[in-house]
């Protein structure tokens, strides 16, 4: 079996179980909220109009946006809870609507018969109306199930593990096997749950107790198997830890450290590298990958993650809102002081390389336009199209560059960072906002244009520790060997190994580690 497939399979128990727990918790609570609400609303036309309208509005919010919105609404909390809440809201409409429609669709004569023979309101509901509306309610539940299991893949960027990790990470590292893996298992899970509910309905309708028990046992097993790995791995790792404890530095052995990563190749490699260092010191490492750019900072600020890698220029422009770039060492010093005073976040140090935004073009296209620097583009800006990742055109660096060089007439096109490099290579756009450490600049023979006015701020890679992690000297000790240890050549080569050669981020991290130890 190849290494890629083996690694994907190794992640499966964790991701699949996280996905099952997340979607079943959201669905379970969704049912608990929307069925009673639907019963109440079915008897009150005013209430049913209001609740259905609210649920419809929620439904029109794109899933990714709804999930992302939960993070600020929960005060910057990331992980399970914002994902759970968003999916719960997402599940409401189909169940609520079908409960109302199902109950209102019962013939008035049947309801009158129940009342006439002496049933109370509750008996009529439980013994007559709900059983008769059941097929319609179950249809809504099945719709909700398929939606929620699908939308749960979008939980990855808010820091909740799910099968979406395969999809997001695969997309960023051009690992299509990983993307397909995520899609297949998410679709498979949706189908299995949908069918389980269908069989439960058949069992209820035909009163086949054996079938109901069978499906019930299956669902219970699914939940148990999903919840189990958490405890099993925990015990296994504790056993491992007691062995290393003796040799490890005091202060961190046996402790849990949460390492965060944004959603692109370089971040996965660096997170794996930090994981290696921390595990060597005896810590138990949990990973939170694929965090959105600002979500990662929020997460370290609130202590949801202990450590991650960011860039001086990013913090400067996006977090500190300082539009004007300054000299790189002063920026590092001022930024470190600001982070410490404002948020208690510790800047452990610079890794050594710089990963700046650069404007990259095909070398032959640059020659054709006689462009060496951004200055040369101003006169022909209206003929050019620039590609960039989803966040770059919203950042201060882009507006500053655009205004400084008079590039306002240039058409912008947003795409995933993975596709930018091939897009410029294949002449689908004229230039892109590249990352200077990306291995594909050299591989595709792209030219990076000069920035004579020094508008683009410096982007030194830095390790940030949360306020809580800053109080754990053992953690800083374990990561200290990385400071100043990675230059641009090494980082670009590591990125290239993943993006071009199909290595896993963990393999690239091992290669970096070997280089550092030499």
């Amino acid at each position: 079996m190849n290494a890629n497939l083996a690694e994907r399979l190794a992640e499966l128990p964790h991701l699949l179980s996280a996905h099952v727990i997340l979607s079943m918790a959201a669905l379970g609570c969704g049912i608990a909220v929307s069925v009673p609400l639907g019963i109440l609303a079915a008897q009150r036309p005013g209430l049913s109009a209001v609740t259905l309208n609210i649920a419809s509005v929620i439904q029109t919010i794109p899933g990714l946006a709804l999930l992302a919105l939960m993070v600020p609404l929960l005060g910057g909390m990331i992980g399970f809870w914002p994902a759970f809440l968003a999916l719960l809201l997402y599940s409401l409409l189909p169940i609520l609507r079908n409960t109302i429609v199902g109950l209102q669709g019962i013939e008035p004569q049947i309801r009158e018969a129940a009342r006439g023979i002496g049933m109370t309101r509750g008996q009529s509901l439980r013994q007559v109306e709900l059983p008769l509306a059941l097929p319609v309610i179950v249809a809504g539940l099945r719709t909700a199930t398929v939606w929620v299991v699908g939308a749960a893949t979008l939980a990855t960027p808010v820091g909740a593990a799910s099968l979406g990790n395969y999809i997001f990470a695969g997309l960023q590292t051009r690992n299509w096997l990983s993307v397909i893996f995520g899609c297949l298992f998410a679709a498979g899970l949706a189908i299995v749950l949908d069918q389980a509910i269908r069989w439960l309905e058949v069992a209820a309708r035909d009163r086949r107790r054996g079938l109901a028990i069978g499906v019930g046992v299956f669902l219970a097993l699914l939940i148990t198997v999903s919840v189990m790995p958490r405890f099993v791995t925990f015990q296994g790792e504790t056993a491992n830890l007691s062995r290393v404890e003796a040799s490890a530095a005091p202060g961190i052995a046996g402790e849990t450290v949460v390492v965060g990563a944004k959603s692109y190749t370089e971040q996965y490699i660096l997170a794996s590298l930090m994981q290696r260092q921390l595990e060597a010191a005896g810590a138990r490492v949990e990973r939170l990958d694929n965090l959105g750019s600002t979500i990662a900072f929020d997460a370290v600020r609130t202590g949801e993650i202990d450590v991650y890698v960011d860039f001086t220029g990013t913090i400067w422009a996006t977090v500190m809102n300082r539009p004007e770039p300054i000299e790189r060492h002063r920026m590092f010093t001022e930024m470190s002081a600001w982070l410490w005073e404002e948020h208690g976040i510790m800047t452990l140090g610079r890794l050594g390389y710089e990963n700046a935004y650069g404007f990259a073009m095909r070398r032959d296209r640059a020659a054709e336009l006689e462009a060496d620097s951004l200055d040369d583009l101003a006169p022909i800006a209206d003929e050019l199209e620039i590609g960039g990742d989803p966040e770059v055109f919203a950042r201060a660096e882009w507006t500053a560059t655009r205004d400084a060089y008079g590039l306002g007439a240039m058409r912008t096109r947003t795409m995933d960072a993975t596709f930018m490099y091939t897009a410029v290579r294949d002449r689908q756009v004229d230039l892109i906002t590249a990352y200077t450490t990306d291995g594909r600049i050299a591989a595709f023979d792209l030219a990076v244009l000069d920035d004579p006015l020094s508008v683009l701020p410096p982007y030194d890679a830095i390790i940030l520790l949360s306020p809580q992690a800053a109080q754990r000297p053992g953690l800083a000790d374990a990561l200290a060997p990385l400071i100043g240890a990675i230059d641009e050549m090494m980082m670009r080569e590591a990125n290239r190994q993943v993006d071009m050669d199909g290595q896993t981020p963990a393999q690239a991290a091992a290669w970096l580690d070997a280089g550092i130890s030499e």
Partner: protein
Amino acid sequence: MIDPAAPVLDIRSVGKTYPGGVEAVREVSLTLERGQLLALTGESGCGKTTLLKLINRLEDASGGLILYEGEDVASLDPVQLRRRIGWVMQGDGLFPHLTVLENVAIIPRLLDWNPERTRSRVADLLDMVGLPSAEYAERYPVELSGGQRQRVGFARALAGEPDLILMDEPFSALDPITRDGLQQEFRALQADLGFSAVMVTHDMAEALIMADQIAVMQDGAILQQGTPVELLQSPASDYVSGLLETPRRQMRAIRELGA
């Protein structure tokens, strides 16, 4: 406790005015003797169904007094009251998701009878209405003919051993032959079990054939009450004679065919 000589139902000056001022029932007084069948008849909208619903409090009267077995129904819990009075609807009103057995056993279960008593009562009733439980108990309403469904409806209404049953157009959805057979069977059942009944019908012939007493209603009030013979011999108004004219004409027509 129950006085066998006293009327089962004693309705005194009862009225029903809906919000908005529509008077559906005005100043109605009636009595129903034990074991008898009272037919409420009249044209659509005359208030006969509303009057029926006032008895088991599916609707509450605006004025007057209704005594059931000597008790003022307004002072009773409506749910408990309805469990003591059988209820048969137009169509059948059976619950489509329950079997014949479960439909009939509903009221005994609501009344918390023990399973043994429920089982034997349901079996007896199904036999009495001509649907042997061995063959029909596990069937669903959709698997029965219209007449069979109505029989299950009767069995369900009688399951709780009520001494009064209320029926709203119980035979109107059936074809004439089934209807005729079922009307006869119902009277036989009533003679066997001794319960009293109030039946709403717009079909004067049905009222004449089945009822001990007939009350003719118009605009919420009773025009005339009496036995079928009394009505036929001395109708109180042109309106009542008009209603009686249809069955009379049919009878004449059949006789003239020369039997």
